[in-house]
């Protein structure tokens, strides 16, 4: 990605956000920003990228949008009013108050619960992160035309149903923020699952960083950022072989990302308002803190899982907790906890894999092999299937 492309991406969210506030029309804002980019493509390579690219884009897009609305009668008054509105454009997009609020408005509108989740993700990546429709399409492995339709439908609903362009008030904020964080985490994981979609992972981190700067008093945002950073220490999970945490070469982890994530976790712990993302980040930070697998502080990890399961009582959290408990209290106790989850997780490959691992530790090789075999059948990716089948075959060989 060259300088101009990067500048476009960073400018896109703030520019669309501000234009939407000024003109009250998301579609018009997006089109005007697009036009401003076309103008920039012509001028920037010749004159250089301006000091404040987002400000330049907003100014240019605003003139463009005024031209568009002047063409109809209703728009003329609006245009006159906005023309007098002064130079919002000179402001720095990340710190200036109105632009800060504009970006929050745009994020909350894109992630409104009245939109289905796949539309929320698509809109957020398109409008806030500034990915092109083609880039959003390839991030979610759908055709460009399908993605274009998805974006059109989502924008139609915002307009037709009048989804408001505002930051939720304090009473609504926790619920609405959770939806935004889910969208960002979904985008991150979509990027983590394919080595070819690395860029998406970076964009999700960038947006989460932005949100953390916009909402410094919301510790769950910092928690999500810390969780992403500690996960990003690893290369993206692509077609490569699965390497268990136990066997990873820890010297190859990205130390800078780990340190940043751990600093965020410490801040979160001090604030004492631990939500699900912060607790997951704390668990990851403990894994990262061990320079060898054998040094992992499993007792502390179990304590965080106890707190996590209290606020997020899902079967998958219970599964992860059982695995940690097995490291502290032994495989018998871990297996007992796993077997309690059988009715809920019988279709989940990692439940069978966890059972296989504990059964092997207890010397119950035939049962362990069968569990790994079942896990392989249910696995979702080829590397996982290969790994799990390998475990099963090793157990059966002797």
């Amino acid at each position, binding site marked *: 990605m060259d300088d101009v492309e990067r500048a476009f991406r960073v400018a896109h969210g703030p520019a669309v956000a501000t234009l939407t506030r000024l003109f009250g029309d998301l579609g018009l804002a997006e089109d005007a920003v697009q036009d401003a980019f076309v103008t920039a493509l012509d001028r920037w390579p010749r004159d250089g990228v301006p000091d404040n690219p987002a400000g330049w884009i907003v100014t240019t897009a605003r003139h463009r949008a005024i031209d568009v609305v002047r063409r109809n009668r209703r728009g003329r008054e609006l245009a006159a009013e906005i023309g007098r509105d002064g130079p919002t454009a000179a402001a720095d997009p990340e710190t200036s108050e109105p632009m800060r609020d504009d970006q929050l408005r745009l994020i909350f509108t894109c992630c*409104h619960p*009245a939109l289905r989740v796949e539309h929320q993700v698509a809109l957020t990546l398109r409008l806030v992160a500034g990915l092109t429709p083609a880039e959003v399409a390839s991030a979610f492995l759908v055709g460009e035309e399908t993605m274009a339709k998805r974006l059109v439908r989502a924008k139609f609903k915002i307009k037709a*149903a*009048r989804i*408001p362009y505002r930051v939720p008030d304090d009473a609504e904020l926790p619920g609405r923020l959770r939806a935004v964080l889910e969208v960002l985490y979904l985008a991150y994981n979509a990027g983590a699952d394919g080595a070819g979609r690395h860029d998406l992972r970076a964009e999700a981190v960038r947006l989460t960083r932005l949100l953390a700067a916009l909402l410094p008093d919301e510790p769950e945002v910092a928690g999500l950022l810390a969780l992403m950073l500690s996960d990003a220490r690893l290369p993206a999970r692509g077609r490569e072989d699965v390497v268990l945490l136990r066997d990873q070469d820890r010297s190859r982890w990205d130390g800078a990302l780990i340190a940043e994530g751990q600093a965020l976790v410490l801040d979160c712990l001090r604030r004492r308002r631990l939500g699900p993302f912060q607790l997951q980040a704390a668990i990851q930070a403990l894994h990262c803190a061990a320079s060898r697998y054998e040094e992992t502080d499993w007792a502390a990890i179990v304590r965080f899982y106890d707190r996590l399961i209290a606020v997020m009582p899902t079967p998958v959290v219970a599964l992860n907790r059982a695995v940690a408990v097995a490291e502290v209290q032994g495989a018998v106790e871990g297996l007992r906890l796993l077997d309690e989850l059988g009715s809920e997780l019988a279709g989940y490959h990692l439940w069978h894999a966890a059972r296989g691992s504990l059964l092997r530790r207890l010397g119950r090789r035939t049962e362990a092999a069968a569990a790994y075999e079942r896990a392989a059948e249910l696995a979702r990716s080829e590397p996982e299937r290969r790994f799990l089948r390998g475990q099963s075959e090793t157990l059966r060989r002797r």
Partner: protein
Amino acid sequence: MSQYLLSVYEAEGSVQGAPATPEEMRAFMGRVIALEEEMDRAGAFVFGGALHGPDAATVVRGGTGLDKITTDGPFVEAKEHVGGFYIIDAEDLDAALAWAEKVVEATNHDIEVRPFRATGRLEDGH
């Protein structure tokens, strides 16, 4: 200001949690009356009503210039049907959804919220 249709969906047959005794019925009525008064005070209430069930429905089919055919029954045979509705004025979708939550709370039924594309009589010049 926009207008929204809040459709109250009911399931066929007896519904879990539906008022069964006279006391429950009175409590249900009390909640709905209080809600409608609240809508009135807020200037949100435009119109509302409760419908007879699908067994009272009749469908007329045909087309412009074609013979009309009248049949007994609802347009779509389904387990769920619209049992009643409100038309409300609301500033935006969030305001409409806030009313919908109150209707769910009062009636114990699910609500579909739909924005009007246009209201009133169609006039020339549109």
